[in-house]
C-alpha cells in the first residue's frame, strides 16, 4: 500500500520536476532578455503566468490521477523551477562578488536585475566599503556587501505584485510565489472541473451563437470599445457664448498608462471590427424591423454626435472650413464624409434586404468606430496607427503576391522604396549648393521646373486619357468575325460583348495620351493651364505617379523571374530589393545618396496648423487601407483571384486548365507592387525625410512575417498580423531590441501551432448562391439546361 503510494508519488513528481525545469529555463530566458529591468511592472506577473500555464498543463491529467497526486506534482514543479532560477541567480551573484562584469556575458543582466528580483536596493547590493589598504580588512561597523539571496519579507523593498497589497519581498519570497503559482494552476483546473465551468462556457457560446440579442451584442463590440475609449479621453469644450475654452477631465482617469491603454483599446476596436464583420452571417435574422432600424440609426447618430462634439469642442479645425485647409486635406475630409454617407445609405438599403442586417450592423459599427477613433487619440498614438496602417498596406500588397498567387517575393521593399522616392522627387523642397555656389535643388526634386510641369500634366493626362479611352471603346465596337474558326464556341458562356481586342485597346490608349498632351500644351498656351493646375497638390500627383512607378517596376521584375519558383524566386527577388536600395544609395546626384531626400512636405498646404497634420496622415492611411483591403477582397472572389489560387496550388495543372501563367503572375506582381507604392508615398509623407536605409531587407522580412502570422491570403489576418507585430511592440517600446527575436520565435510557434495564421481566410461558401442562380437560370431557359 505504502509502497505503491510512494511509487506513484515519485512518478508524478518526475513529471512535475520536468515541467518545473522548463518553467525555470523560460524564466531564466526572460531574465536574460532583460524583462525584469525593462518591464518591471509586468515581470513578476509574467513569471507567474509561465508557472501557472505549466500548472494547468499538468492538471490536464486530472482524470487519470487524483487531485492530491497533482498537487504533489505542482509542488515539484514549483520547486524545480525555483531551484533552477536560484542556481542561475547564485551564479550571477557569485560573479558579481568576484567583480566579473556580468554585463559582458549577458547583455541585459545588470545589478538592477538582482535588485528587482531580490528586493535589495542597488546601493546595498555590491557597494562594499573600501578595504584598509594595509591590512586588507573591511572597516568595522560598516555593513558589508549584502547577499541578495537573503530571505526577506520586507514589504518596503519587495517586488510589487500588481497593485493589491500582496507584497512578498526578496528572492525567496519570489520563489515561494512561484511554487504557489504552480499549485494554483492545478487548483484552478480542479475547480473548473468541479464547477463544470467547461459546460457553462460551451452553453455560453451556444447562447451567443443562437440568441439574436446576444449575437447583435457581439457584433456591436467595436462601438462599445469606442465608448470605452471615449470614457478615458479628456474632452475640450468651447463655449461660443463666452468665447472660453475649457477642458474636462476624462471620466475614467488612467493616469500615466493612459497612452498605452488607449492604443490597446484602439487596436481592440479594429480587431473586434474584423471579428464582428466576420461573425455576421447572411442568414442571421432575429430582431424586428423596427428594432433593427432603431439600432442602426442609433449607432450612426451616437457616433456622429460624439465625433462632432469632439471636433467642435476641441477646435481641432478638422472639419472646420478654415482657410488654412485646402488641397488633399479637403479631399481626405470629403472622402471620410462620403464614406459615412454611403454607409448610412447602404444601411437603409440593407434593411430592406432580409438577412443582410447583421452584416450591415457589424460593418457600420466597426467602420464608424474606426473612422472616429483618430479624433480621440493624441499625436503619438495616431502616429502608431499610421505606422500600423502603412504596414497593413504593405502586408495586403504582399498578400496578393505570396498569399493569393503563392510567389515568394523577398524584395518586396523595392516597390515600397520606389513609391516613397517617387513622391520625394516630386515634392521635396530640399536645396543643395550647386557647382557654381548657387543653390540648386536635387535633380528632379520638387523645385525643378520640369517636375512642376509634370505635376500639372499628369492629372490632365489622366482625365483626358480616361475620357478618350472610354469614348473610343464605346464607339469602336468589334464586329463578330465573318468566318468562325472551328474551335470558336457556338454557345459562348457569356453573350458576345463586342469589346475591342488587345491591340486596338492599346492603340486607343496611345491616341488618348497623345491627345491629352496636345490638350495640355494648348491649355498652357492660353494660360488657362497655369490657373487650373499649377496648384495641383503634389501629394495627389505623387500618389498617382508613385503607384504607376511601382506597378511598372512590379511588371519589370516579374518578367525575368517568370520561370522561377520557390527558393529561386525568393533569392532573385531578394537581390532585386537590394539592387534598388543600392541604386538609391549610390546615384547621389539624383537621389541624394545616403543622406537621403529631405524636406518632403506633408500632404497639406503650407498654412495648415494644429492637429490637422497628424490627423490628415492617419486619415489618408485609413482611406488607403480601406481602398486596398476592399480591392483585395473583391479580387479574391474574381476570375483573377481564382486563377492565382489555382496557380498557388499547382502551376502546371493551372496552366493546363487554361490559365495564362504569364498574365496571372504579372498581374499579381503589378498589383502587389502598386499597393506597396501607395504605402511608400504615404511613408515618405509621414517621415518627411527618407534615406535608402529605410528600405532594408528587414522591411521585406517584417512584412512577410506579418502576412504569415496573420494568415496567408486573409485580409483581416493581415490587419491582425500588422497589429500584433508592429502595433503591440510600439506599445511595449522597451522591448524593441528584441523585436526581431520575438518575430522569429513567433514565426516558429505559429508554424507549429497554427500554421494557417491568426485569422485565416474562411472556406468560401458559394453553394446557396450558386443554387439560387442555377434555379433561376433553369426557369429562364424554360426547363432546358
Amino acid at each position, binding site marked *: 500500500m505504502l509502497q505503491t503510494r510512494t511509487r506513484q508519488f515519485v512518478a508524478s513528481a518526475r513529471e512535475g520536476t520536468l515541467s518545473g525545469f522548463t518553467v525555470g529555463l523560460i524564466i531564466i530566458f526572460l531574465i536574460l532578455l532583460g524583462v525584469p529591468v525593462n518591464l518591471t511592472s509586468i515581470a513578476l506577473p509574467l513569471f507567474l503566468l509561465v508557472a501557472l500555464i505549466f500548472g494547468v498543463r499538468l492538471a490536464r491529467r486530472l482524470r487519470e490521477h487524483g487531485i492530491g497526486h497533482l498537487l504533489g506534482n505542482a509542488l515539484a514543479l514549483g520547486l524545480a523551477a525555483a531551484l533552477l532560477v536560484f542556481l542561475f541567480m547564485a551564479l550571477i551573484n557569485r560573479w558579481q562578488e568576484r567583480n566579473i562584469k556580468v554585463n559582458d556575458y549577458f547583455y541585459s543582466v545588470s545589478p538592477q536585475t538582482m535588485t528587482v528580483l531580490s528586493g535589495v536596493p542597488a546601493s546595498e547590493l555590491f557597494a562594499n566599503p573600501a578595504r584598509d589598504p594595509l591590512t586588507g580588512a573591511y572597516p568595522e561597523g560598516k555593513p558589508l556587501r549584502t547577499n541578495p539571496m537573503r530571505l526577506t519579507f520586507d514589504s518596503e523593498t519587495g517586488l510589487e505584485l500588481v497593485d493589491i497589497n500582496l507584497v512578498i519581498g526578496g528572492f525567496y519570497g519570489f520563489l515561494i510565489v512561484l511554487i504557489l503559482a504552480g499549485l494554483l494552476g492545478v487548483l484552478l483546473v480542479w475547480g473548473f472541473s468541479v464547477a463544470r465551468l467547461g459546460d457553462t462556457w460551451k452553453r455560453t457560446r451556444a447562447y451567443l451563437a443562437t440568441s439574436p440579442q446576444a449575437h447583435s451584442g457581439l457584433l456591436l463590440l467595436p462601438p462599445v470599445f469606442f465608448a470605452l475609449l471615449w470614457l478615458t479621453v479628456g474632452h475640450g469644450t468651447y463655449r461660443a457664448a463666452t468665447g472660453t475654452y475649457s477642458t474636462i477631465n476624462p471620466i475614467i482617469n488612467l493616469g500615466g498608462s493612459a497612452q498605452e491603454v488607449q492604443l490597446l483599446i484602439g487596436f481592440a476596436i479594429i480587431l473586434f471590427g474584423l471579428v464582428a464583420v466576420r461573425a455576421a452571417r447572411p442568414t442571421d435574422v432575429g430582431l424586428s424591423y423596427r428594432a433593427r432600424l432603431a439600432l442602426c440609426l442609433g449607432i450612426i447618430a451616437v457616433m456622429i454626435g460624439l465625433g462632432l462634439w469632439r471636433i467642435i469642442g476641441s477646435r481641432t479645425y478638422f472639419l472646420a472650413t478654415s482657410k488654412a485647409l485646402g488641397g488633399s486635406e479637403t479631399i481626405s475630409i470629403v472622402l471620410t464624409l462620403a464614406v459615412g454617407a454611403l454607409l448610412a445609405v447602404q444601411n437603409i438599403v440593407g434593411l430592406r434586404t432580409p438577412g443582410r442586417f447583421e452584416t450591415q450592423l457589424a460593418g457600420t459599427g466597426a467602420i464608424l468606430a474606426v473612422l472616429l477613433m483618430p479624433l480621440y487619440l493624441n499625436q503619438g498614438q495616431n502616429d502608431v496607427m499610421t505606422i500600423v496602417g502603412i504596414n497593413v498596406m504593405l502586408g495586403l500588397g504582399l498578400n496578393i503576391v505570396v498569399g493569393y498567387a503563392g510567389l515568394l517575393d523577398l524584395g518586396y521593399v523595392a516597390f515600397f522604396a520606389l513609391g516613397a522616392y517617387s513622391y520625394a522627387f516630386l515634392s521635396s523642397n530640399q536645396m543643395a549648393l550647386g557647382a557654381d555656389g548657387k543653390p540648386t535643388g536635387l535633380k528632379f526634386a520638387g523645385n525643378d521646373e520640369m517636375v512642376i510641369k509634370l505635376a500639372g500634366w499628369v492629372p490632365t493626362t489622366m482625365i483626358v486619357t480616361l475620357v478618350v479611352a472610354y469614348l473610343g471603346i464605346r464607339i469602336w465596337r468589334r464586329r463578330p468575325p465573318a468566318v468562325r474558326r*472551328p*474551335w470558336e464556341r457556338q454557345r459562348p458562356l457569356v453573350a458576345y460583348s463586342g469589346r475591342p481586342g488587345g491591340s486596338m485597346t492599346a492603340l486607343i490608349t496611345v491616341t488618348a495620351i497623345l491627345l491629352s498632351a496636345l490638350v495640355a500644351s494648348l491649355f498652357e498656351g492660353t494660360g488657362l493651364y497655369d490657373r487650373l493646375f499649377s496648384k495641383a497638390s503634389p501629394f495627389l500627383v505623387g500618389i498617382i505617379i508613385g503607384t504607376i512607378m511601382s506597378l511598372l517596376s512590379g511588371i519589370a521584375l516579374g518578367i525575368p523571374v517568370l520561370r522561377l519558383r520557390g527558393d529561386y524566386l525568393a533569392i532573385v527577388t531578394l537581390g532585386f530589393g537590394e539592387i534598388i536600395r543600392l541604386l538609391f544609395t549610390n546615384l547621389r546626384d539624383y537621389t541624394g545618396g545616403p543622406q537621403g531626400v529631405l524636406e518632403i512636405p506633408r500632404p497639406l498646404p503650407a498654412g495648415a496648423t494644429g492637429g490637422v497634420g497628424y490627423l490628415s496622415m492617419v486619415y489618408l492611411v485609413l482611406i488607403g487601407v480601406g481602398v486596398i483591403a476592399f480591392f483585395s477582397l473583391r*479580387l479574391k472572389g474574381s*476570375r483573377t483571384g481564382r*486563377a492565382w489560387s489555382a496557380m498557388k496550388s499547382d502551376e502546371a495543372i*493551372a496552366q493546363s486548365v487554361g490559365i495564362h501563367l504569364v498574365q496571372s503572375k504579372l498581374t499579381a506582381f503589378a498589383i502587389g507592387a502598386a499597393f506597396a507604392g501607395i504605402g511608400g508615398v504615404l511613408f515618405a509623407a509621414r517621415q518627411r525625410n527618407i534615406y535608402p536605409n529605410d528600405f532594408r531587407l528587414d522591411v521585406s522580412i517584417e512584412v512577410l512575417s506579418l502576412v504569415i502570422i496573420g494568415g496567408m491570403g486573409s485580409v483581416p489576418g493581415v490587419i491582425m498580423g500588422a497589429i500584433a507585430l508592429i502595433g503591440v511592440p510600439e506599445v511595449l517600446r522597451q522591448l524593441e531590441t528584441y523585436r526581431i527575436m520575438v518575430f522569429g520565435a513567433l514565426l516558429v510557434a505559429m508554424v507549429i501551432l497554427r500554421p494557417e495564421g491568426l485569422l485565416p481566410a474562411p472556406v468560401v461558401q458559394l453553394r446557396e448562391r*450558386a443554387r439560387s442562380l442555377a434555379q433561376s437560370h433553369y426557369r429562364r431557359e424554360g426547363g432546358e439546361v
Partner: protein
Amino acid sequence: MTDRSHARETQPVLQATGVTKRFGGLVAVGDLDLTIMPNQIASVIGPNGAGKTTFFNCISGFYTPEEGEMRFLGHPIQGLRPDQVTARGIARTYQNIHLFKGMTVLENVMVGVHPSLRSTPLGALLRLPLNNIEEDATLTHAYELLDFMGLADVSDVLATNLPYGSQRRLEIARALASDPHLLLLDEPAAGMNPQETEETMHFIRRLRDERDLTVLLIEHDMNVVMNISDQVTVLDYGRKISEGTPEYVQRDPLVIEAYLGTAADEVDVNLLAT
C-alpha cells in the same frame, strides 16, 4: 448542339501523324498515327510504360513532340502552350488526381471556366457589368456541372477532403467546365470498385451523347475499354501495334503477345475481354 456537330462532321476532331517523343535515348512515343472522328469514344491501351500518358501530354501541350504533326479540327496544335490548347477546346484529367488544394469543389470547377471569361481585375474591383454577368454565369455553369456529376451537395467542401471516387468525378467536372470538344481521360476508372466502374462507363457514354463530346481515354480495365469504345489503339514501347474496333483488337495476336508476352495461339482470346 446540332449545328456544332454539323460543322465538324466533315473532318476528324484529332489527327496525329507521325508523332514522336523521346526522352534521351528512350522513345516514349514513336511515329504514332491516330485519327479520331467526332462523337466517338476512342481508347488508347497498352502495358505500363507504353507511352500513353506521354502521348496525352503531347496533345495537351506539356511536351512538344520532336517529330510529327497534330491537328485539332483541322488546325495544327503542336507547339501551343497548355492553356492555349485548353482554350481551343481540349480538356483533360490526370492519372494521379491533381485538384487544386485549398479551394472548394465549386471553386475548382469555376477555375475550369477560366478560358471562357474575359473580365479583368479592374472589372472585378468596380463590379463592371461584364464582370458581374460572367461571375453569375460561371457560378451557374459550375453548379450545373456539379449537379450533372452528382457532386452538388458537396459544393462547399474543400476538394481535397472528398473521397477518392468523387475526386475523380470532380476532375472530370473541372475539365468539362471549359466546354471542350475533345475530352482526354487518363485512367478514369483506376482504383474504382466494379460498381463505380460500371457507373463511370455509363457516365462516359452520357457525356458523349448529351454533351456532344468526343472522348479519348486511357484505361487499363479491359472491361471498360471493350464495352464503350468505338475505336481502340494499342501501344507498346511507344509504337502503335494495333488499331480497330474492340472486337478486332481483342483478337489481334500482336496485342495478346504484348499483353501476355506469349504467342497468340496459346492464349484464350477471350481473356482480354473479362
